[in-house]
Each structure stands twice: as structure tokens, then as C-alpha cells.
């Protein structure tokens, strides 16, 4: 239960940060007890109220779970992109990483793997080193935001695992990235 309430707190904090501006906040949950409760006798009312409360809690928990899952998926799916031959973080990349830092602070048990990737241009070895630099920049930035360095490991895949096939600028832009995985 303690964990659940911690989770609830976390989710409220994150959802506030992540969704409030863009999505108009989390969905309202039905909290009004049904009208008919007034006419029933006391024990019935108590029982009914108990039931309703349980239902409500279940709904809330489901919603918390859903939002936690969403936040986690966002952490995993939202990649940080880099300019060509660069490991310096762009302002957009820094924004994304600030959101990731919030999530990591709120989920202190999670250990993350930062993967550095490159586009297919350039040489295998240089790109392995470049992917390493990219993953390192991300890790250092998150450390500066207060995330414990021991919670993050880095791995470079160079140009070996492009997420987007194709020999064109569109593909290259998407392949120059840092990706997060959970250890």
C-alpha cells in the first residue's frame, strides 16, 4: 500500500508536468455517489458506500497504473536526437531529458541504460565512439540534474542498429539518437 500511495504521488506529479499543458490534464474520475443511496437504510447505505468507494479506488488505481505505464512508455519511447557528427545536446534534447529526469527522480528504483546511436554515414569505428560520446553526454546531463550516476549505464551501438531504414536525410535524422532502456 505504501508503494501504491508513493506511486500515486509520483503519477500525479508527472502527469501534471507531462500532460497538463498539452492535454488539459488528467481525466476527471467519477466521484459522485449515486442519488439512490439516500433512500436506502443505514446499513444498506454503508454497504453501498463501501462498495462504491472500493469501485472508485479500483478505478483510481487503474488510472494511476495507466498513467504510470504511459509515463514509463514515454520515458522509453521518446528518443533524444543529435545533429550530424555531434554529441552536444540540442535545446530540444535538453527539454526531453529534463522530463526524463523528473520521471527518474519519481521512480528511484529504476536503473536506466542510455544507448547511443548514429546514422549509417561515416565509419563503423568512429560511429561506435560517437555513439559512446552521445550516451555519455546524456548521462552527464542527467547527473547534473541530480540523477545518481550509478543508476545509469551507457552503451554505444554506433551505426549498427538503425531504427529507421533508408539511405536518406529523413532516416539519418531519426537514427542519430540516444535511446533509453530500463535495466
Amino acid at each position, binding site marked *: 500500500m505504501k508503494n501504491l500511495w508513493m506511486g500515486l504521488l509520483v503519477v500525479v506529479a508527472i502527469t501534471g508536468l507531462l500532460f497538463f499543458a498539452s492535454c488539459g490534464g488528467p481525466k476527471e474520475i467519477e466521484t459522485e455517489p449515486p442519488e439512490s443511496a439516500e433512500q436506502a437504510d443505514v446499513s444498506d447505505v454503508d454497504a453501498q458506500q463501501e462498495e462504491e468507494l472500493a469501485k472508485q479506488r479500483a478505478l483510481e488505481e487503474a488510472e494511476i497504473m495507466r498513467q504510470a505505464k504511459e509515463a514509463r512508455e514515454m520515458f522509453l519511447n521518446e528518443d533524444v536526437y543529435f545533429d550530424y*557528427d555531434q554529441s552536444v545536446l540540442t535545446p530540444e534534447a535538453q527539454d526531453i531529458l529534463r522530463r526524463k529526469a523528473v520521471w527518474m527522480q519519481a521512480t528511484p528504483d529504476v536503473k536506466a541504460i542510455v544507448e547511443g546511436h548514429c546514422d549509417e*554515414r561515416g*565509419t563503423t*569505428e*568512429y560511429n*561506435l565512439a560517437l555513439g559512446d560520446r552521445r550516451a555519455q553526454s546524456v548521462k552527464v546531463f542527467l547527473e547534473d540534474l541530480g540523477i545518481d550516476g550509478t543508476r545509469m549505464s551507457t*552503451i*554505444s551501438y554506433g551505426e*549498427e*542498429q538503425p531504427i529507421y531504414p533508408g539511405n536518406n536525410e529523413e532516416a539519418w535524422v531519426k537514427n542519430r539518437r540516444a535511446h533509453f532502456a530500463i535495466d
Partner: protein
Amino acid sequence: MNFELVGRRCGTIILITTMLVLFMPGFCPAKYDYIDISNPFLRKIPIAVPHFKSMSASGNEQKISENGSQLLSETLEFTGFFKIMDHASFLEDTRKAGIIESQINFLNWTGIGAELLITGGILIKDGVIEIELRLFDTFKNRLLIGKRYKGQQADLRQIIRKFCGAVIYEFTGKRGIFESKIAFESTGPGNKDIFICDFDGYNARQITHTKSITLSPAWSYDGKWIAYTDYKNGNPDLYIKHLTEKRGFVVALKGVNISPAWIPGKFALAATFSFSGDPEIYMLTGTGKIIKRLTRQWGIDVSPSFSPDGHKMAFVSQRSGTPQIYIKHLDNEQVERVTFEGQYNTTPSWSPAGDKIAYSSLGDGHFDIYVVNIKDKQPLRLTCEAGDNESPAWSPDGTLIVFGSTREGKARIYVMTSFGTDQRRLLALPGEQTNPKWSSNITNN
């Protein structure tokens, strides 16, 4: 000659090499003036290689004789020194006229422009193949090389290569490339693994079976060891593997363990590690123990390649903002920049003669191979308008360069002369092939 090695290895019969020449020329004036070493590929020597003569005229002999002469032609042509003449132009049939000096009318060969002639005779007896091969200078009416080889039929290719080695030695005074191999990456198995083939692309075989990403092969100077990077334990770790014995070493430090290159004449290598937080080049023993750190600049330092004397190391560094080639003098720690044109110059490969570095450079949206003279730092472009061309590596005699190219769509391995001529595909396997590295001549592997 060490041809008995073949016999020993195959566990078959002892092979002998006999000098057929009873009389050697009393003197050898200008022995090496056939091939201009400064640029031997400007003018190729026209050479006629008629079908070998079947000594007992059996059907099997005739078939092998044609295979043999074809193989001999291809092997010589591969070197880039020779122009193989069309059989249709031949005026004389050596299978009828004969294959020894007194039986050859050299005017029939000089008349069609052949400056050299190779005749062969083949005899198969009790499953044993006996081949005699002669190289003639048609204008001087003189036998230059005569050899006889004995072996199993399966040894034909090695016999031909031995003779080609003798031919190249006659002209260049060097051992050539016929006992060298090429290592490369191939995605054929469904992931990148390391493969090895003979110098001419023949006999390709997979030497790692990791089911993970495996890349960057590097030969030890004696061709006995190969180092590479492999993700099989999750991280890009460095593996140092003996090719014939089941032993090796692993370097699995935090971060990347990549881009190995061996130091000539030593059981030692250099590689890039990022355990310090930054990719730097280190020198390590062949057993994987770090001896010292070789680069100390923030940013990427990668892809070492050593001068033949081992005193200098070319490498790629991002210290100026973009990847460029530098040389570090290991004796006095000085570093000089080699490339100044272009924003992306990588994969240096030091020539066996020590005077040049081949590398790949990005320009106009494509990678091309360049060779830069270390003294004047003038780059010479060797590939152009043919896809991306990357990862050059010199043949052990310095006459050829192997490289990766996407000129036919898929990434494949190609060979050209060190002057950029005679560009051709080395081999095509399932999947894509990249990152070739040429070994030294391997005598006992």
C-alpha cells in the same frame, strides 16, 4: 621453396619443386626492369598463357589443364601487372608444338605482341598431379623460370599460386600477395560476423559465430591472431583470438572496447577504450593488458594504424572539431595533422612502404578513398562517383588496396591497385560485406 608445407598440411604426399633449368643465364642484366615500381600499372605487360599441355592426353588431364591455365591467368591478372592475352589471337598451339624452349617459335608470340609466355604441362598418374610450368621472355628467347610441382588434384590452386609467387618475385623482388588473406564483416548469418577469404576472394569462411554484433577485424603482423569487437556479452568488448588454436583474450572494460590495430612485429596492439568517460587510444599487450595511454585529448580518438617500423601511429581524432587524420610520433610524443581538406576523414591505413596513408573522406555527400603522401601531405583521390567507398587496407606488398563500396547498391568488398586503377569486386556473399583488412603473407596457417 617451402612448398612441402602444403604436402605436410594435407597429410598427403611430399611435394617437390625442381628447378627445371639446367643452365641459368650467366648474368642477369636489369633483372627487375620489367615492372616500373613507381607506377607499374600504367603499362601492363602483355602475357600469353595458353592451355597447359596434357602429357598423357587423358580426358581428365585436359579438363584440369584448361582449369589450370585459366586459374593462372586470373591469378596473374589479379596483381594488376599483366594484360592477359586473348587465346583467339594465338598463332601457335603449344599443346601440339610443345612447351619447352627448343619447341617454341618465339616469333609466333612476339608477332602478336606477347612479351611473356607461360607454358604448362600436366600429368596425372595414380591420382597424383604433376605440373611443369615455364615462364619465357619472348623477345629475348629466354627461359626465366621453370618449375615442377607434384601434389593432389585439390592442390592445383596452391600450385598455381606458388608459381605466380615465383613470377612476381622474378619481376619485383618481393613475395607478392599470394599467401595473404582478407578478413571482413558480413551480415550473411543474420548479424555481423567476421569472415576470412584468400587474397583473391576465394575460400571465404565464417570465423566467428556469435549471434551478436561482431565487427572491426584486425590481423596480427604474423597473421596468427585476429582482434575484433563483439557484443555477445551485451557490451562492445574486445576479443583477441588465435585463428588455429582455441585460445584468446577478452578486454571488457566499461564503455566501448573498439577499433583494434596490431603493432608491426610485436604481440601488442592499440585499441580505443572509453572507460575514462572519453574514447581514447591505448596500447595493450596481445593478452589484453593495458601498457599505456596513447592519446590525451577530449573528444573521440579512434582507428589507430601503425607505420611499418612501429614508431608512428596514424589515428582519427575529433580534436579540431571534425574527424581528421593525425600522426603521433611514439618516440617523442609529437602529434601532427595529416588531412586538411574535407570535414570527415577517417579509417587511416598506413602503407607497407611507410610513405603513404590511405583513408576515406566525405565530400559531396559521398565517401571516397584517398591516399596521402606523408611528406608533402598531398591527397590523391582514388575512387569517384561510385557510391560510398570506405575502409581502405593495403595488400602486404603495397601494390593493391582493398576497400568497401556501395557502388552496386549493397555494401561489398572491392580491390584496386594502389594508384586507383583496375577497380573490381572481390566477392559477393549473402548479406552485406564491410570493413576489409588485409593480412601479411601467412606461411604456416
